[in-house]
Structures are given as structure tokens and as C-alpha cells.
């Protein structure tokens, strides 16, 4: 399958702070890609560059064959972005927010699509309430629904920056099913997450961003091969992605701060 996103040697710094120090990866069409990293690793920075909101200092990235800097408008025509922080109009109702995006993108069946999304995101009962009265989780769901308010073409590549942060377990699982379905329908999903089990469950390919570089990349099985299971005397325990992650980023005993360990 062809690569729908290819990123090569992307660098970005803010003043003196080097956030991305040469990031490269490829994403296959129709797959789910998860970018993992600690707080401040640069996940949002990478998403913003790919979604044309910010320009890299050097390196290049192409989506659907278009360059994210030189052909930003073409790229915008084939992506949908849900940023890390809710981007809804607080003074409009849930339904009006969806209709606003549908009208801006000139969808032919705006109302019908809005109804579908309200149902899919369990927002039917609050569709007529102003978004400012929504709870954090409801706002998040509306936010994601808004980015899906587009044509097939505009949903070819879907960016979800920490889509399930703040969702309750029930809605998180519903969200996971939604993401799987999007990929089954042919969309490519790029997600960042703090929940490693989320990446473990959803992602076809996982990349770990640490200190400005992708330090590990592959399917869960490939990552497991690099960091083989701990051999116990009789039973073999597959490492969870969480263990792999913590090992890679160099903090191998969860819960025990490095300094506390050293002082012992």
C-alpha cells in the first residue's frame, strides 16, 4: 500500500528550544498511526506542522502527495484536525457548531450528516444546548464530531491529538470503535495519546518521540522483538507497551522516581 503521509527530517525549534531534531516516518494509507511521547516531547508540534498550522524550520512533509508548506491549501482539502484543545464556538449550540463546519466546507447534506454525528457521539440530547454549557467530555466529543463534518475527501487523513483525554471509559471505548471504523472505511488516522493501551489496541504502527527524535517505530510485535519478553523460569510474560515505552525513555521502574532510586 502507498504512503499517504511521508515525513522526512523535520526540524522545529522555538527560539532556543529545539523541539523536533530531525523526525522522519511514513504512514500507509488506511492505517492507524500512533505517536507516543512524554509531556512536552513535541507531539502537538508535529501535528500542527502536518496540519499546516505551523511551519517547520527544515525538512519536509507530504500528505496526499502535497507539500505541507508549499501546497498548504491542497493539504487542507484532504485533512481533518482535532487539536489537543477544544476548538468549538461556545456561543453556538452543538448542532450549530456542526452545521457551521458543514456550511464552510459546503457539504451537500449538512443537516443529515450533523444528525448522524450527533447520534454517533451521544450528543443528541444536548444538541440544542449552547456548547458553553457542555461538560469537558461532551465538548471533546463535539470537537471530534466537528472535524468529521466533511466530505470523504476531507476525511482522508484524520489527525486526533489526544482524542480520549478527559473521556470516561464508556466514551473512550466508543471512541476507539469509531476510530477503527474510520480506518476500515479507508481513512488514515494519525493519533497522539498518553494512554499506551490505546495505542496498543488501535495502532497499526507506533512511533515513540523522545528528545526530538523518533527512537522506536514499528508494529507492536516489532517493538516487542526489539525489547524481548522478560524470561522467567517457567512462564514468559509479554511486556506491555507501557513497559516497552518506559524502558525506551529510560525510566524502567514505573512509579519510582530516578533520583529516589539513585540515592538508595
Amino acid at each position, binding site marked *: 500500500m502507498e504512503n499517504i503521509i511521508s515525513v522526512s527530517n523535520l526540524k522545529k525549534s522555538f527560539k532556543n528550544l529545539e523541539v523536533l531534531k530531525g523526525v522522519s516516518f511514513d504512514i500507509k494509507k488506511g492505517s492507524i498511526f500512533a505517536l507516543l511521547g512524554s509531556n512536552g516531547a513535541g507531539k502537538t508540534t508535529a501535528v*500542527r506542522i502536518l*496540519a*499546516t*498550522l505551523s*511551519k517547520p524550520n527544515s525538512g519536509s512533509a507530504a500528505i496526499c502527495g502535497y507539500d505541507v508548506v508549499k501546497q498548504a*491549501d*491542497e493539504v*487542507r*482539502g484532504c*485533512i*481533518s*484536525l482535532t*487539536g489537543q*484543545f*477544544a*476548538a*468549538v*464556538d*461556545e*456561543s*453556538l449550540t452543538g448542532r*450549530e457548531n456542526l452545521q*457551521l*463546519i458543514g*456550511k*464552510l*466546507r*459546503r457539504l451537500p447534506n449538512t443537516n443529515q450528516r450533523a444528525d448522524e454525528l450527533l447520534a454517533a457521539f451521544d450528543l443528541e440530547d444536548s444538541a440544542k444546548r*449552547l456548547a458553553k454549557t457542555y461538560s469537558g467530555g461532551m465538548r471533546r466529543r463535539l470537537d471530534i464530531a*466537528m*472535524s468529521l463534518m*466533511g466530505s470523504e475527501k*476531507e476525511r482522508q487523513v484524520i489527525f486526533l491529538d489526544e482524542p480520549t483525554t478527559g473521556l470516561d471509559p464508556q466514551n473512550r471505548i466508543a471512541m476507539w470503535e469509531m476510530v477503527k471504523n474510520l480506518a476500515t472505511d479507508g481513512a488514515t488516522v494519525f493519533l497522539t495519546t498518553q494512554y499506551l493501551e490505546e495505542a496498543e489496541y488501535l495502532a497499526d504502527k507506533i512511533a515513540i518521540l523522545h528528545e526530538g527524535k523518533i527512537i522506536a517505530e514499528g508494529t507492536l510485535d516489532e517493538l516487542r522483538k526489539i525489547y524481548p519478553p522478560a524470561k522467567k523460569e517457567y512462564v514468559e510474560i509479554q511486556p506491555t507497551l507501557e513497559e516497552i515505552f518506559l524502558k525506551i525513555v529510560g525510566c524502567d521502574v514505573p512509579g519510582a522516581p530516578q533520583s529516589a532510586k539513585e540515592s538508595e
Partner: protein
Amino acid sequence: MQVISNSYTMFKRCLTTSLRNPETIGTAIFIPAIVMWLFGILFGNVMDVGDYNYIDFIVPGIILQTVAQAVTAAAIGVNNDMQKGIIDRFRSMDISKSSVLTGHVLSAIVRNMIATIVVIGVAFAIGFRPQAGFLDWLIIAGVLILYMLAITWIAVICGLIAKTPESAGTMPFLLFVLPYISSGFVPVETMPKALKWFAENQPMTPIIDTLRALMLNQPLGNNLLLSLVWSAGIIAVAFTIAVQIYKNKTS
């Protein structure tokens, strides 16, 4: 066309939100109405403005103050959009870039017109007696709409450069004060030298003189032409600056 369709959608969005917060139009009516009432009652008998009734004399200046008050909502609205995440959503979509600003400007014109009509109504109630005919009112409307556009684009700049919605809302206050240093409330000839020079040369004076001449059936002179040139010039400059700041901020 994409620009027109997107601008219309943004216009409807901004209008819906401002109709949901009627206090923004409310203050744009209430404050100029209070000023008009105070000036009319307090100074009405002592002010010597030639052959005019004082209330008839100040209505054009009051209307300009109404516009200044009504555009604060546009400054706040633009600033809100820029501060909140929604601008990133708009930017990540393949839509007309200027439509975000145009939507605010068009809805501001509607708010301005509502506020101005109500304020003129209040003026009637407290003794304003214009002698304008239908055609005069049409010209008045045209002059005012052009002026509103000019002032709204200035407000958009305020909204773009302000750090917070609060400061965006207070920046256009200058536009509320400036009519005092024009022919709006006292005849320019009575002013001290420096103020007189400023009042004679600032754009509000020919606009106020145009409105006054049309409302009270007086000779226009070259004031109509001057006001149109001023408004068109301000629109051209403020629009260019606003779009440039917007592009710099969002690229």
C-alpha cells in the same frame, strides 16, 4: 463562489452569537442615548449654536459615538476567535482566509444599523426634529454605512493586536471620545487653537457636517465628497493592515 459562501456563513455565525448577547447592542444604544439626554437637558439652554436647537445640533455626533460603541463587540469577537482554538480549526480547513474577518465586519454593520436607528428614535422622543426628505435619508444611510465599515475595520485591527478580549474592547474607546474634538458638540470656531486645528482636519468633522446639513436642510458644501473620500480611504488602509496582521499571525 467560495469567498462569498464562506463569508456569508461566517456572517450568520457572528450575527447569531451577537443576537444571543443582546447586551452588546444594548450598551451601544444606552450609552449614546444617555450622553444625548444629558447634553440635551443640561446644556440645551446655555449652548449657543447659532440658529439650531442644541439637540438637533448634537444628533450627528451622537450617531458617531453610537458607531464607536457598537464596534467594540467586533473587536472583542475577533480577539476571542484569535485567542481560542477555533481559529486553528478554521485555518486547518480549505476555506477563504478573509471570511473569518469579513463575517465579523458584516455582522458589526447590522448591529451598528440597529443601534443607530434606535438612537435616532430616542432622539425624536426627546425633541430632535429633522427636516430631511426621503432622498436625504438615503444619502445619510449611505454615508453612515461607509463610515461604519471604516470604523469596523479599525476595530478589527484592535481585536487582532490586543492581548486580551478586555483590552480589545476598550481600545475603540478613543473613537467614542474623538467626536468631542470635532464639530459634533460645539462649533469648531469656539475651540482653543490646537484643538481647533485638530477638529477642523479630522475626518469626523466633514462627516458630522454632512449628516447635519442633510438632516437640517442646510447647504452641503464639499462635505459630502470629503466624507466619502475619508471613509473610503480609511477602509482601504485599515482593511489592508488588518488582513496583513491576520496573515502574519496565522502563518
